[in-house]
């Protein structure tokens, strides 16, 4: 797991909003490897560096939306997520969509924030489908255990999971990627 000093970044961002170019440069330089790691975990291909640059540009253009009293990491993670989704939609590229809450934690996000990323995706699905996927993929129940917990047959669980993951792929603009 990577460790980042988000409190320090928060201080630098506050200073940047007040026009401190030195600390702003320091912040961008510090955020860059985090972004690279964030995108490499999610995207196959060599476009990660392009995405990092696009995200840095967005950070710059949207810096007025940073709430100085709020932590920095959720803000930058949301920008990175939006840039990734936007990029994938436009390019129709293969992307690796993990339904694994630990992935966000590896990016230095707090567990609740990482879990929220997954919940954002799952909330796009019908409640029943999201529950089955949540039990099977997040809580790591077997197909049979999920079937018992939801009162469905094992084959129905398999179908629901398969269709749900397909739908999630569609929601992030995938034409064909892995999602497990």
């Amino acid at each position: 797991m990577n460790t980042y000093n988000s409190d320090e970044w928060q201080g630098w961002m506050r200073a940047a909003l007040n026009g401190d170019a030195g600390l702003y440069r320091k912040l961008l330089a510090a955020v860059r490897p985090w972004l690279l790691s964030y995108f490499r975990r999610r995207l196959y291909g060599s476009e990660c560096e392009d995405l990092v640059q696009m995200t840095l540009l967005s950070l710059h253009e949207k810096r007025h939306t940073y709430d100085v009293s709020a932590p920095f990491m959720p803000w930058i993670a949301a920008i990175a997520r939006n840039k990734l989704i936007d990029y994938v939609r436009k390019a129709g590229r293969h992307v690796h969509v993990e339904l694994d809450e630990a992935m966000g934690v590896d990016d230095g996000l707090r567990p609740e924030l990482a879990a929220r990323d997954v919940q954002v995706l799952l909330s796009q699905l019908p409640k029943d489908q999201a529950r089955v996927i949540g039990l099977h993929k997040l809580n790591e129940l077997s197909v049979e255990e999920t079937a018992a917990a939801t009162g469905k047959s094992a084959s129905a669980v398999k179908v629901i999971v398969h269709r749900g993951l397909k739908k999630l792929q569609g929601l992030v603009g995938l034409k064909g990627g892995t999602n497990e």
Partner: protein
Amino acid sequence: MSDALIDDLAKDLKPVKPMRTWPMWLGAGIGLVLAAAYVIGFYGLRPELDGGTFTFMAIGKPLLFLLTGVSALWAVSGLVRPEGWLKWRHILPIAAMFVLVTGALMLDLGRSGMAGVSDGLNGGVLLCYMTIVCGGIAGLVVLWRLWLRRAATSHPVTLGAMAGLAVGSLMAAAYSLHCNMDAPVYILAVYGVAVAVVTAAAALIGGKLLRW
């Protein structure tokens, strides 16, 4: 490549004013006062208010839309930043208002039947629609020009919808100072649909204009 970009971005960095929500609240307050002044000035107050008699519906109807508008603005304030999120506490009051009016309509249906309920739709429908839709869209344009376009939301359609619901509801609150059609069916089918039109238009616009 990134190093050059970082240098460019940091060079000549200017201080920026962080986005605050108080201008939205202030603008909405001013907009509401202007809308009320327009409604009272051009259409006049409803008879009870004009005569100084404050009946339940004369106060309750404007309050219903005012609370809906304020709740929607609250939701907007929570959505304008990238990490923003639509929380249940933001939309619970809106849902409660909807349930309240729908419940009243059901009671009315049970009491008066379909024919009795549809009597409540007579009068002022076009003026109500036009005022809320046009006033709501005008409010939306002003909100967009002065504040909302600086937003960076992760949920553009939802943010647009909440902004539309807010301005539409506030316009409905202003219009209800004039209108004395208080039947639940009127509130749902006339006010509700007019507000829904503004909400849907704003959701569409939000999806197009607030993209990353």
